[in-house]
């Protein structure tokens, strides 16, 4: 099963490689990973999506905790979080398909961020499953390139500690 882990880290050089080294060294997989500074510039938040059964997720969580630079590990799959991902998609957009692309993007509340002679770049934000849905629908029309950010998550109001 997929799990999104939200990890607070000391914002120091090399910390990210400690995390990725842990995953590669112990054979855990990373499906996506995002890191950026938090409101406290000495702390970064890393959000990563991984998969495995309960015991693997437990081991991953404990191993992350064991890293000296890790402050806190939260499993956002436990329901009290809002998760979002953004995707940028470059679509084939010629005379026949242009209108269709626009219509689909509109349904998904996306927008066009770049326009070329034969292509549009569109932006869509949402849960990972929404992103997957828009990709699946656009694919038959002709996707030239996809860039996904990976999931980020924030706790729901009243649930943050």
């Amino acid at each position, binding site marked *: 099963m997929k799990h999104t882990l939200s990890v607070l880290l*000391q914002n120091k*050089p*090399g910390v990210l490689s400690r995390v990725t080294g842990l995953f590669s060294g112990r054979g855990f997989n990373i499906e996506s990973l995002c890191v950026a500074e938090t409101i406290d510039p000495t702390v970064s938040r890393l959000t990563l999506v991984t998969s495995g059964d309960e015991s693997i997720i*437990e*081991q991953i969580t404990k*191993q992350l905790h*064991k890293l*000296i*630079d890790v402050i806190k590990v939260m499993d956002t799959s436990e329901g009290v979080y809002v998760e979002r991902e953004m995707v940028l998609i470059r679509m084939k957009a010629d005379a026949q398909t242009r209108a269709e692309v626009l219509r689909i993007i509109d349904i998904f509340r996306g927008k066009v961020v770049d326009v070329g002679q034969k292509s549009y770049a569109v932006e869509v934000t949402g849960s990972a499953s929404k992103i997957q849905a828009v990709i699946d629908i656009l694919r038959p029309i002709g996707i030239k390139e996809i860039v996904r950010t990976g999931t980020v998550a924030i706790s729901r109001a009243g649930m943050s500690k």
Partner: protein
Amino acid sequence: MSQLTGAQAIVSCLLEEGVTTIFGYPGGAVIDLYDELMNSEKLEHILVRHEQAAVHAADGYARVTGKVGVALLTSGPGATNGVTGIATAYMDSIPVVILTGQVPTPLIGNDAFQEVDIVGITRPCTKHNYLVGSKDELVQTLREAFHVARTGRPGPVLVDLPKNIINGLITYEPPQPIKMDSYQPNTEPHPGQIGKACRMIMEARKPVLYVGGGVILANGHEELAELATKLDIPVTMTLMGLGAFPGNHPLSMGMLGMHGTYTANMAVAKCDLLISVGARFDDRVTGNLESFAPHAKIIHIDIDPTSISKNVHVDVPIVADCKRGLEAMNTWFNNQQDISVAQEKGKHQQWFDKIKTWSDAHPLGYIDDNDSSIKPQYVVEMLDKLTGGDAIITTEVGQHQMWAAQFYKFKLPRHFLTSGGLGTMGYGLPAAIGAKIAMPEKTVIDVAGDGSIQMNIQELATARQYNTAVKIAILNNKYLGMVRQWQELFYDKRYASTGMDVAPDFVELAKAYGAVGLRAKTKDEVVPVIKEALATDNTVVMDFNIIREEGVFPMVPAGKANTEMLLV
């Protein structure tokens, strides 16, 4: 507050931490620090002959004293030579601080002369590591390094020191309590879990204590002895746990696992409760996981949460320092007014009867050929006898290591120094030197193989230079014996590259280093050689020409159940 050079500050930090001895090897990146060391009378520097040995010696020093060992290496090849030593300490959770020189900060990343990313290289084999990025971080980083190395589950911590920081002027502030937001290891057991565990112990009819190196690291051997004897629970130890409980105690079943005793492996297979303390269910201990303690509930005390339920599901996890965990259990039992201890003990009588049938059927032993040939087990037995069982024994890796573990009856913790986790050939001699320097009054013997001893043989010079009268007992089978044993048993006796066909004359080699060399070719020469070695106030190499194709038994073939032992 005072102005110091980086080098002076490093020395001050070491003294602050109570360091008296460091093991190292100089080079360009650390030359200023070496220069400063000459000004310090309180810090003794031991010049090894290879950086790997510096780390092993610091590790040996740490294992016997419980203090943090310190190694000092130069940048580039000096640092990379140390990596095997660091990984060895990491796998066995030994507190060591490794200081490495680094090229000046402005040159980092430029492929400068003798530059290597040692922080990157050692990330997976240190508990933590640091590149000191600016001179303001120097003192705090060193203090943190010692704190991290010695607390929680101990381990090696590397601090990479750019040359310009060693040279720079810094403001030295007196120490304050270390506060690290993201590192607060838990040492206190949860009282609810302790109660649960103790009730489980009371219900058990066939309990076993399975004890690892964590008990030794936590100095919990007395608490362990109290628990085991109070409730009459038989004890088995891992390789790293030997000495945590007296090997000659009636409750001791000896070592378990791949080369464990028949009794210990059978007891674990049949027990109804396994109380694991400071052990980590390593594959060399468990054999085939499915058949490891299949009928048992499991209690696990460990300081490291990642060790709990990693390989085997645990019923009662207790995250705590092993000493504190055992203490809490003892207190719990002492507070139960309505428990009659005698009654508790009586409950295990049938279990002891069963255990006795196993130890009667297959005691640890070997076949004495009754001729003049030397059996390696006999040599270890004589070492045990002639040292009264309280020498510090280090080992290399191979058959000799297992014979030392099986036949030397360790009575005390911190007396058996062996590379359990990484299995590093070449560990024993430098570790013995570190141990002897820490405890000059103790007899220190490296039980070595003819293959392994050649991996750090150059340290005979270190031993000589500092008059460390370590003894080296080579169980010489002219083979990489442990690998040969596998080839004999599982590869149709195809001895691919395991014959040590060319080897030095170890007696002459010892002499070349200014040490003493002795040889025993027949059984009746064994005792006189050991006696002479023990009576000699010098480094002594004993070359025991043992029969070549002896095997280590019992043996659980890799991947098999622990009950499927090959016996003598």
